[in-house]
């Protein structure tokens, strides 16, 4: 019964999407677009998606194992949090979550569409078209409400496509994939990414609508500024939480492996970041109109590519848990999006392109152009590296691998150049900057960067990459803080108090300062990546009970082994005392362990981490050697800075959200004497 309700919700949403696409196009072409005509389809899409999602969650919570998805991905012993998260943890559920969010976002967009708003009606039509694909997928090859028709050895071994027929139910379900129920972050990180992915549908929809209507100007950018930021914030948070999950769960001591599916999330983030920066140039200087269309099309296409890589099983990866007919459908959709959007762009580019207005390369817009060039290059390198093995294998039947060696070599120089561009560009004036003025603004920050790099050398760092990154990271932070102090000082000279000056500076340019907060976070992240990869200490130790070993300024002592039964898993582990370097004082007791989940053939090694003021000490259980335990011990300097930096990056985005729409003034064409004054 519940499956029928859920599937009906999908069909209602699908029908509504079709109606929204058709009626939306009609309204967009009309001189007097009436949003009320779209009300029914929008509500049908949102409520149909919601009904389907609620039905799936109810089926999961009530352990209705006649629903094949529930039988294969949940069990009666699954804890509540992971039971709820099972609603999107597997293929069909994740697509349903996508549809639910798209329906919700469509409704939110609809609420802002006013009579006569052809651009908004067109955007709703595009969102309807996108929804046709996702709900069409759920209605056909990725139906989460197929019912179980055969049970073999207590496992649902066959299911029907439609939720009708003779349903059978196993006594209990299989439970979620062990890796997905091993840490709370796995319940949070995927919805964050989906919010980011689906969020970028909105600027894409407005861009396509503007292109199709031949709308010139920045209206579509102004209306999607917050949407782009919201999508970017969630995508950023999702990527950092994914890294954190990897660090806390996978046990190899890292947070980023350049896995194809990690790259799939990074690619739209890079393109989206480039788009947000490029949009600033259009709003302030009226430049790069055509380029902004290209970037938003690229960002949306890369979200589809990311889903294709994640969900098709085309690339062997720890993330690619499933293989199904969804892959070809996603590939076709990606091709349709790319060919359709780029063809539309080719036809309309001459209408929407802006005249060149680049007065000087040494200017704020010059550095934003450099930022776009570097980010695009970065995206190209990651994209080519990710897809190369696939293309090579398809062309030659031979297998090649592209991993960390290539990605590190490509990414590190680009990232360092980006840091340099951020540090200088943030304080560069719009239009044109005299080199002397620019030097005056960055000189103190350069000194801070040099002092920080020298301090790193003095404390014993001998890695050129780490020293360079620390220097550039501190340069960026000093440059931004120095500029903020300078601006506050100027405001104070008008007779304001310190608090009043800070409020004035921040309030006048909230978007700008939100961005600078993100840049500070990014600099901290860069420093943390350098120290955790360049200065990490790793050692494998074998210990009997009561024995100690020294690793990187710490001692580890094997205290005892332990076992415990939990409702959803069996745990075997060891208690390890973490001592100071002289092996005298105990700092903490860690419990690296192995989790064995019912119905899972492979046990999951789960590390334990101690975070101090400087280092993380990370213990992972590698195995047993007779009575001795084999431990991987890692010491990561400044690991916590990575998570703090990530939080600050996201915080900056949230601050920038507070910017009032249309607050960015267009920088006027002024005479050379005034140019330097047009500073922010």
């Amino acid at each position, binding site marked *: 019964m519940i499956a029928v309700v859920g599937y009906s919700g999908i069909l209602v949403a699908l029908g509504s999407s079709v109606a929204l696409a058709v009626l939306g196009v009609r309204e967009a072409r009309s001189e007097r677009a009436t949003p009320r005509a779209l009300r029914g389809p929008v509500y049908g899409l949102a409520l149909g998606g919601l009904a389907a999602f609620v039905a799936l969650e109810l089926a999961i919570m009530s352990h209705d194992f006649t629903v094949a998805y529930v039988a294969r991905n949940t069990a009666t012993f699954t804890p509540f949090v992971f039971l709820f998260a099972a609603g999107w943890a597997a293929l069909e559920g994740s697509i349903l979550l996508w549809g639910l969010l798209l329906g919700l976002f469509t409704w939110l967009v609809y609420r802002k569409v006013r009579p006569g708003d052809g651009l908004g009606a067109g955007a709703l039509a595009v969102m309807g078209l996108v929804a046709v694909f996702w709900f069409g997928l759920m209605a056909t090859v990725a139906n989460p409400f197929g019912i179980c028709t055969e049970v073999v050895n207590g496992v649902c071994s066959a299911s029907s496509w439609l939720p009708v027929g003779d349903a059978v139910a196993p006594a209990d379900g299989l439970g979620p994939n062990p890796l997905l129920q091993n840490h709370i972050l796995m319940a949070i990180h995927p919805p964050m990414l989906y919010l980011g992915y689906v969020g970028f549908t909105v600027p894409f929809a407005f861009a396509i609508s503007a292109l199709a209507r031949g709308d010139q100007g920045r209206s579509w950018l102004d209306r999607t500024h917050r949407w782009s930021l919201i999508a970017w914030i969630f995508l950023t948070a999702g990527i950092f939480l994914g890294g954190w999950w990897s660090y806390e769960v996978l046990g190899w001591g*890292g947070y980023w492996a350049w896995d194809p599916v990690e790259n799939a999330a990074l690619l739209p983030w890079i393109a989206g970041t480039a788009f947000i920066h490029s949009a600033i140039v259009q709003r302030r200087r009226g430049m790069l109109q055509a380029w902004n269309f290209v970037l938003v099309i690229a960002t949306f296409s890369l979200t589809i590519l990311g889903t294709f890589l994640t969900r098709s099983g085309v690339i062997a990866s720890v993330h690619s848990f499933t293989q199904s007919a969804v892959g070809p459908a996603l590939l076709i959709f990606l091709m349709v999006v790319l060919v359709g959007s780029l063809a539309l762009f080719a036809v309309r580019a001459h209408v929407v392109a802006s005249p060149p207005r680049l007065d000087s390369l040494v200017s704020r817009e010059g550095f934003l152009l450099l930022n776009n060039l570097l980010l695009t290059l970065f995206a190209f390198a990651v994209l080519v590296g990710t897809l190369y093995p696939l293309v090579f294998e398809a062309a030659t039947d031979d297998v090649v691998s592209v991993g960390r060696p290539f990605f590190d070599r490509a990414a590190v120089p680009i990232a360092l150049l980006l840091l340099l561009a951020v540090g200088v560009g943030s304080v560069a004036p719009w239009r044109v900057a005299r080199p002397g003025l620019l030097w005056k603004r960055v000189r103190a920050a350069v000194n801070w960067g040099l002092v920080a790099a020298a301090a790193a050398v003095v404390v014993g760092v001998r890695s050129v990459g780490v020293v360079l990154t620390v220097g550039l990271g501190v340069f960026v932070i000093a440059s931004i803080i120095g500029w903020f102090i300078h601006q506050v000082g100027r405001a104070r000279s008008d007779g304001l108090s310190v608090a009043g000056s800070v409020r004035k500076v921040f309030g006048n340019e909230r978007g700008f300062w939100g961005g600078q907060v993100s840049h500070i976070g990014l600099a901290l992240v860069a420093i943390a990546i350098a120290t955790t990869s360049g200065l990490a200490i790793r050692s494998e130790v074998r210990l009997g009970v009561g024995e100690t070993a020294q690793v990187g300024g710490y001692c580890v002592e094997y205290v005892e082994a332990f076992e415990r039964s939990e409702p959803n898993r069996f745990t075997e582990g060891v208690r390890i005392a973490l001592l100071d370097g002289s092996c005298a004082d105990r700092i903490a007791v860690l419990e690296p362990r192995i989790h064995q989940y019912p119905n899972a053939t492979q046990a999951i090694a789960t590390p334990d981490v101690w975070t101090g003021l400087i280092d993380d000490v990370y213990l992972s259980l590698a195995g047993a050697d007779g009575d001795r335990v084999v431990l991987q011990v890692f010491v990561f300097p400044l690991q916590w800075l990575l998570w703090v930096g990530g939080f600050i990056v996201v915080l900056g985005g949230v601050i920038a959200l507070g910017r009032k729409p249309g607050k960015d003034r267009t920088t006027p064409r002024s005479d050379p004497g005034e140019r330097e004054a047009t500073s922010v």
Partner: protein
Amino acid sequence: MFERVRTVVSVVIPVVAIAVIVVGLWPRPDVAVDPEARVRAVAANIKCPFCSGESIAESTSSVAADYEVLIAEWVDQGVTDDEIYRRFEDRFGRGILLDAGGAGWGLALWIIPGIALVAGLGAIVGLRRKERSSRPQRAKEPVA
């Protein structure tokens, strides 16, 4: 007086910092490469044969641990990095090496982003030239 001290300090600080950095990071040929670090570096370039997408250095599987021990033995015996890579390639095929971008078709990994870089630089330079060439005409345009 204060201004002079400030000027001197602003010159001295970067000079001293640069001197510390250069002296500290100057390559020292007498410092031998740590064998454990070499094993890690080599293991990071080789895919764990029976794992999903991880390098031998990254994988926590027992298979990866065994191969790391094997690499350490070869390093002890004085086998070069290239020879170790060749032995793995002979045993498991080219896909075992994580760095496909070294030569042959793998150069495409560098050439394609390189083309993007050149195209991007070309576009920026073109934008600048277009602006310069259009400026005199624009100057003649009447002010609206």
